């Protein structure tokens, strides 16, 4: 029984995730769900490097911004179709991640965390920089056009963008799942937990860490691309340090070193602020903070680890 759940669970989830919103969700809700997919990918990217590989990054908003801008610039300046921007975005972000990963290698723990945090703070001003504002639109940002469903499919633009994002999301999640459950994933975890033993086992730590950084950046960048397509707008001030912190919160809440955790984390960062806003106009930030702290008390290892424990208990019974 349990084995069936683990095998068919994801498949069932995908089918439900595709069908239910198409049937019941309004355009606005589809938009929210599209953002959830984008956030989930971004959190997943962060999770690969921080959760699995133990390199704490507080600056993943930078990769998200790069992904979003690559898509926006290609669509706006060169009329490239939205879907064709994704592979480019993936490559650009991976390269960017690789380059950043090289110095990051030398920095351990808290030094890496704070350096990436500083990067996140610097992102808006880099995007505004005058030498590139011919591409980025400077402070004004870029407005792009939302894609319609192809082949005269009877879908609204929102439905199509959601399905498209979901498909990309599923693909990337499957990729990540294979990655972390295979040899590479074991190496990543080994580097996190037992760096010396990992080295002794012949793992090239430096190469692995940079590659993990690059892969991570690629995931987050694709998240940014999807978000740009859905939001139809990018601007430097869309990518403040708050965004990086949000992804970090998503990872911690969802569960570090968990593929599914990224989904829970994304749901949290998308919907909990709305709840906080609903509860208090006076200080929604305070409510959000309290909810966040409460979650850390109830599920210090994240929602994924909480659920895992519950399922384990159910299985024992």
């Amino acid at each position, binding site marked *: 029984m349990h084995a069936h759940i683990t095998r068919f669970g994801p498949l069932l989830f995908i089918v439900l995730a595709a069908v239910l919103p198409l049937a019941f969700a309004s355009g606005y809700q589809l938009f929210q769900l599209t953002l959830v997919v984008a956030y989930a990918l971004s959190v997943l990217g962060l999770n690969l490097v921080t959760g699995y590989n133990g390199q704490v990054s507080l600056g993943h908003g930078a990769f998200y911004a790069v992904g979003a801008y690559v898509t926006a610039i290609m669509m706006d300046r060169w009329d490239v179709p939205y879907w064709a921007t994704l592979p480019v975005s993936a490559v650009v972000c991976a390269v960017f991640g690789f380059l950043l990963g090289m110095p990051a290698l*030398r920095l351990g723990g*808290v*030094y890496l965390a704070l350096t990436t945090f*500083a990067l996140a703070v610097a992102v808006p001003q880099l995007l505004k920089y005058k030498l590139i504002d011919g591409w980025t639109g400077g402070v004004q940002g870029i407005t792009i056009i939302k894609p319609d469903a192809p082949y005269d499919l009877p879908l609204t633009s929102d439905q199509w963008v959601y399905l498209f994002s979901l498909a990309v999301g599923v693909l990337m999640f499957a990729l990540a799942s294979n990655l972390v459950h295979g040899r590479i994933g074991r190496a990543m975890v080994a580097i996190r937990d037992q760096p010396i033993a990992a080295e002794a086992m012949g793992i090239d730590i430096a190469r692995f860490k940079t590659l993990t950084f690059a892969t991570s950046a690629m995931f987050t960048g694709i998240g940014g691309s999807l978000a740009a397509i859905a939001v139809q707008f990018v601007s430097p001030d869309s990518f403040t340090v708050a965004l990086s*912190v949000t992804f970090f919160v998503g990872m*911690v809440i969802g569960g570090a070193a968990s593929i599914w955790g990224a989904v829970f984390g994304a749901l949290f960062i998308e919907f909990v602020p709305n709840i906080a806003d609903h509860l208090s106009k006076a*200080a929604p*930030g305070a409510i959000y903070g309290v909810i966040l*702290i409460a979650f850390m008390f109830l599920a210090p290892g994240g929602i994924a680890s909480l659920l895992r424990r519950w399922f384990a208990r159910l299985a024992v019974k």
Partner: protein
Amino acid sequence: MDAFLHQLFSGIATGGIYASVALALVMIYQATHHVNFAQGEMAMLSTYVALTLIQAGVPYWIAFVLTVGASMIVGIGIQWLVLRPLEKAPVLASVGVFIGMLLMFNSVAGWIFSYTLKPFPSPFGEGPPMLNGLFSRHELGSTGVTLLVLTAVWAFFRFTRLGLAMRAAAFNPISSRLVGVPVAKMLALGWGLAAGIGAVAGMMVAPVVFLDPNMMAGVLLYAFAGALLGGITNPLGAVVGGLLVGVIENLGGAYVVGTELKLSMALVIIVVVLVVKPSGLFGKTLASRV
């Protein structure tokens, strides 16, 4: 030349601000091995407390002492009530809590004290700038206070039994318990001291940047940068790092890359330094034989 000196000294003055907050970060890092992202917001709240006291007619230095005392108690309280229960949880959970506190404190401060910018008095008085106009009285005074706090922190960690025990508790809690160090109390005390130092920093920063709930947002980042540059395990390093960041940023912004990129440039310099010397200019590299 005159302009260069002005830029230099203005950088030192700003760097002094970073240094004072960096000290609080080093304090808490030494004591708990955490980087407290809510440190700036705690300092900001402390400063509001001080302002409330001063406006109620309490003389500055009494308000100063009361605020530092109250902040220490609150810091200890936070550690005891919020962080101690998470001691066995993954480190990331604590970071989540720090972020939660950051959001919470910021929002609460705006709610209670409003977002309007408020002037905060300087204990060093108004009056003509000193040193040929290079330093204002407050800049001079607050730099002095920062150096005083630095000396106190350094001496505390270096010479006192308690300071040693706090460092030990952070490095190796299990061994510390085995030699009789009450680790939980040390962590709480570390929080208390950091909150107290933060309060001092807040009261020194506020006359310069003015008091509002977001007062520390920008400062905290540069304080991080300073602590990184100097080495987050070393109080002296934090102060030198903070000053250096202030000077680099000012001179770089004025003469090299322009103001649009001065933060990015400071960042690049820090990364370069860290790549060459991974634990900062003054940080001890952990050399261990296995």
